[in-house]
């Protein structure tokens, strides 16, 4: 992928499967897509629907930022503003980021990476997409009939007794989409346990797979709790049960416990797959085995498990017991350590590597920096004494956007670029990809860095209007958001364009290791012609003086 010049597609590219049978041209017609059980086609279904949701959530964000240009609430009225950020949060979290990497890249790659023909339960995989789509549809109906304005956190008793908007429908949409997430996790866990290729032991798995394993654990063990909680909210609204009604002796804080029991681990659903992508990108673009493989693998599990023990850090000022608060604070600090281990190991992988600065690697490098900042500001919030001041201010908003946009979305974009040739059989224009990466990075920092400052100044979040002295910083932020919005559109344009006019991709355009690069691009329906057998560790790149590694590619039979 050294050149941007795109010529005709005449000459045959080795390993390119566009002119042969592949999963895209194997069947035709809309039903062959809507009823497919091929994990790769389902990944494409997700890709399309998730991209739509991203731009929808982005449009809401644009509304939020435009409103916040001026201190007075003059663009939209306060109800409309509240709906904007609520629907922005819900769409981005539940309908975009949680399914993003697992359902698109995970679905497409996980079976291939472990040498399987498909996920363990292809029909359930399709079902999970339908759950997702029905969840989206229900939520869209809620939006059309006036939206919701409870904040994405649905705190009681506001959501159960006071909000006059479509809480029930929105909750139902999330509930249904939740099952999509659970089923995806279930499929992954079973697939990883039962369907690894011969020779593919746990410690030979690509780190992408480890990350998805940890993610699936959270999806399976966390999501049901939020599902039943959100169901309680809906039923309480419907039937006036009074489970969270203080007038009957119900406790609104109990809702927060149940909500965050899932929703904190959920932030690791959002970041762990991104970390998995990171490990793949870093190794591929340094042509080197990752530094500290076992530590990265185990730290994923550590994050997933310890991540379940920290949820109370969202409730330091709610009236939660001081002692519980201390425990949660301590454990929150603890969960930072496995994250730190990952960051340092990725950095160390670069040492004496063969680093190429192609666009996926640019996203990867951006990820390391921005995730570090996002994570470190998480420590500010985990510090109880500081969180008293920072809770529910823009500091929190900046913290999580640094991780979720600067981290997760960077990883997602990096991953999409990296595997685009494999998924579509086409190369994208590298020049534009680099331009977009730089613009996204710049726009992102301009948008969210000022929010740290304005947050410590005391600007509360979810504010439609604000005191004048905060305006300068907010204008900067809005300017950044405009840049960011435009920057996001660029990949949309050139990726779409590449589908039709991009150069044909060979089987392994990056010279990367991993079973997915041994098969044609795009792959055939059953991925492999013969069951691959794995004899080596992951990322066995040919490296310097250690000649034993130079010998052969992984023993998988290479097609084409």
């Amino acid at each position: 992928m050294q050149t941007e010049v795109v010529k005709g597609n005449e000459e045959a590219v080795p390993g390119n499967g566009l002119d042969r049978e592949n999963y895209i041209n194997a069947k035709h017609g809309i039903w062959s897509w809507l009823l497919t059980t091929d994990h790769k086609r389902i990944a494409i279904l997700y890709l399309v629907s998730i991209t739509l949701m991203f731009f929808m959530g982005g449009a809401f964000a644009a509304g939020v930022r435009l409103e916040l240009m001026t201190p007075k609430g003059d663009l939209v009225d306060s109800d409309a503003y509240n709906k904007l950020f609520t629907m922005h949060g819900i769409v981005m979290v539940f309908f975009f980021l949680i399914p993003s990497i697992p359902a698109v890249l995970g679905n497409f790659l996980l079976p291939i990476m472990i040498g399987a023909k498909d996920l363990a339960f292809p029909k359930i995989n399709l079902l999970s997409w339908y759950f997702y789509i029905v969840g989206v549809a229900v939520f869209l109906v809620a939006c059309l009939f006036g939206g919701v304005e409870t904040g994405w956190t649905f705190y009681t008793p506001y959501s159960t007794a006071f909000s006059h908007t479509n809480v029930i429908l929105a909750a139902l949409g999330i509930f249904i989409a939740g099952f999509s997430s659970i089923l995806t996790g279930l499929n992954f866990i079973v697939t990883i346990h039962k369907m690894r290729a011969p020779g593919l032991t746990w410690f030979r798995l690509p780190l992408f797979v480890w990350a998805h394993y940890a993610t699936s654990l959270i999806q399976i063990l966390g999501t049901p709790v939020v599902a039943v909680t959100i169901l309680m909210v809906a039923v309480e609204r419907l039937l006036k049960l009074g489970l969270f009604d203080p007038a009957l002796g119900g406790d609104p804080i109990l809702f927060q416990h149940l909500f965050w029991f899932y929703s904190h681990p959920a932030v690791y659903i959002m970041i762990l797959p991104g970390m998995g992508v990171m490990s793949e990108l870093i190794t591929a673009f340094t042509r080197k085995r990752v530094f500290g493989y076992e530590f990265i693998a185990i730290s994923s599990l550590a994050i997933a498990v310890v991540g379940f023990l920290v949820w109370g850090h969202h409730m330091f000022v709610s009236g939660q017991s001081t002692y519980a608060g201390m425990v949660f604070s301590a454990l929150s600090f603890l969960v930072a350590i496995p994250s730190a281990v990952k960051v340092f190991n990725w950095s160390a992988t670069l040492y004496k590597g063969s680093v190429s600065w192609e666009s996926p690697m640019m996203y990867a490098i951006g990820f390391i920096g921005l995730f570090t900042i996002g994570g470190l500001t998480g420590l500010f919030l985990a510090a109880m004494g500081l969180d008293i001041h920072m809770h529910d201010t823009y500091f929190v908003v900046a913290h999580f956007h640094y991780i979720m946009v600067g981290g997760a979305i960077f990883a997602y974009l990096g991953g999409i670029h990296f595997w685009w040739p494999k998924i579509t059989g086409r190369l994208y224009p590298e020049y534009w990809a680099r331009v977009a990466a730089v613009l996204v990075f710049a726009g992102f920092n301009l948008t969210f860095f000022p929010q740290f400052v304005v947050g410590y100044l005391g600007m509360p979040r979810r504010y439609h209007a604000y005191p004048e002295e905060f305006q300068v910083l907010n204008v900067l932020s809005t300017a950044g958001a405009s840049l960011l919005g435009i920057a996001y559109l660029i990949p949309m344009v050139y990726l779409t364009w590449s589908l039709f006019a991009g150069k044909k991709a060979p089987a392994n355009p990056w010279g990367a290791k991993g079973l997915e690069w041994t098969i044609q691009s795009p792959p055939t329906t059953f991925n492999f012609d013969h069951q691959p057998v794995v004899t080596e560790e992951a990322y066995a790149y040919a490296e310097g003086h250690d000649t034993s590694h130079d010998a052969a590619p992984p023993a998988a039979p290479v097609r084409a």
Partner: protein
Amino acid sequence: MTDHAAAADHAEAHEHAHPHIVPVRTYILVFLALMVGTAITVGASYVDFGHSYLNNLVALLIAFTKATLVVLFFMHVKYSSKVTQLAVGSGFAFLVILFFFTFADYLTRGWLGTPGS
């Protein structure tokens, strides 16, 4: 209803997926144990053990025993692979986490006299 020898025979001929066919007698015994457990639970609820905590403890202990019996025998976990046992265990372990940390809040709220009192 089934004769043993046939069951054993079959299990051998069969490949390793089903390592064990539980004899019907085991099922019946477990069933009887469960019934007895239910009876004891009901009976114990009418006895005053002096403190309601004790009553709760007894009821829960019996319930846990019953559940364990079902899991081990009816659901064959006793004869299942380690991974299966792990799945069973992790579901339960995370439930314990949910309970433990939620109660960590509620039960210590009064300690400092800060919130809520």
